[in-house]
């Protein structure tokens, strides 16, 4: 017998648990809170066992840190001190996303519901399926890059986007054209900064939401596909989640170092 099961209502807007003044506290925020608590507990636990002879968990975190430190040092042209100052932001984003993206496979926590029976809603939900989280992360990363670049060289940083300097150095009529093209390109760079935010945030959002929706749709497709069939799709979703958790900080790293090194005095690149 073949019949369609009731597919749960899919909406991009997450369920609102309660409102705190003008702020809506949603299920995804509750999920993020759980992830944060787990991360803090994990950090304290790992800290307790630190030693010269590393435990297994310490080796894992040292490898993770080494991976990003190497990439950052290379991007800054061998300046390890600068790399270490940015590293905590990227590393904590990576660890948070590793847990957040795989939130759906954490047992028990993701099945908590509120108001059993009528009007039941999930208490926690995978955090990156809320667009506010991903756009907030992207804005933080890009904004931090601009803040750091502005602190190093304010005039130079603004001059990268508003290129009016060649307009004052016009000697021939032909120079006017190149100067105007320069102004136009600076304006395009300004638009490019906003495009970076949109591309970073919607990449994470789209991947995670798609991974979740595929599992939901396959599960409720028919009574035959409820049990074994969704498992490969779950693995596919987990793989893409882990890749996104590594790719988001890596792309953020490229954007940040690009912005910061464009205003720094040029240094000789180390031969790798």
């Amino acid at each position, binding site marked *: 017998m073949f019949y369609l099961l009731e597919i749960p209502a*899919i*909406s*991009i*807007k997450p369920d609102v648990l309660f409102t705190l003044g003008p702020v809506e506290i949603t299920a995804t925020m509750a999920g993020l809170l759980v992830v944060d608590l787990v991360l803090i507990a994990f950090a304290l636990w790992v800290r307790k066992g630190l030693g010269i002879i590393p435990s297994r968990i310490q080796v894992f975190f040292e490898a993770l840190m080494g*991976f990003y430190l190497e*990439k950052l040092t290379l991007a800054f042209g061998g300046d390890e001190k600068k790399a270490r100052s940015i590293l905590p932001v990227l590393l904590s984003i990576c660890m948070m996303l590793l847990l957040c993206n795989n939130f759906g496979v954490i047992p028990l926590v993701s099945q908590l519901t509120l108001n059993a029976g009528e009007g039941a809603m999930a208490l926690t939900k995978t955090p990156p399926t809320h667009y506010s989280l991903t756009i907030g992360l992207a804005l933080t990363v890009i904004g931090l890059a601009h803040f750091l670049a502005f602190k190093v060289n304010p005039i130079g940083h603004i001059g990268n986007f508003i290129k009016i300097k060649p307009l004052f150095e016009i000697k021939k009529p032909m120079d006017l054209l190149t100067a105007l093209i320069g102004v136009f390109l600076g304006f395009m760079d300004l638009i490019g900064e906003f495009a970076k935010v949109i*591309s970073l945030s*919607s*990449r994470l*959002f*789209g*991947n995670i*939401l*798609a991974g979740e*929706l595929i599992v939901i749709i396959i599960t409720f497709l028919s009574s035959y596909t409820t049990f074994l069939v969704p498992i490969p799709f779950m693995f596919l979703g987990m793989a893409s989640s882990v*890749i*996104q958790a*590594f*790719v988001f900080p*890596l*792309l953020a790293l*490229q954007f940040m170092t690009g912005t910061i090194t464009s205003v720094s005095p040029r240094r000789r690149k180390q031969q790798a």
Partner: protein
Amino acid sequence: MDIAVIKIIVAGITTAIAGIGPALAEGMVASKAMEAMGRNPEAADKLFSYMIVAQAVCESTAIYGLVVSFIILFAV
């Protein structure tokens, strides 16, 4: 035609067309990375992470199409 039917058809077309370019691009990135790894196996670890980043960048247009089709299906 019913508006719900139009929504489904448009969402399908959006994702299908958006998937063509990134599929070709990701295959190209992977094949070039494989060639480079074959020629220089010591650099395989370094190349692999760069390959993943490049593929994520290629993938972004497909994800834009996907997000647009989600918006068409569930938010409009």
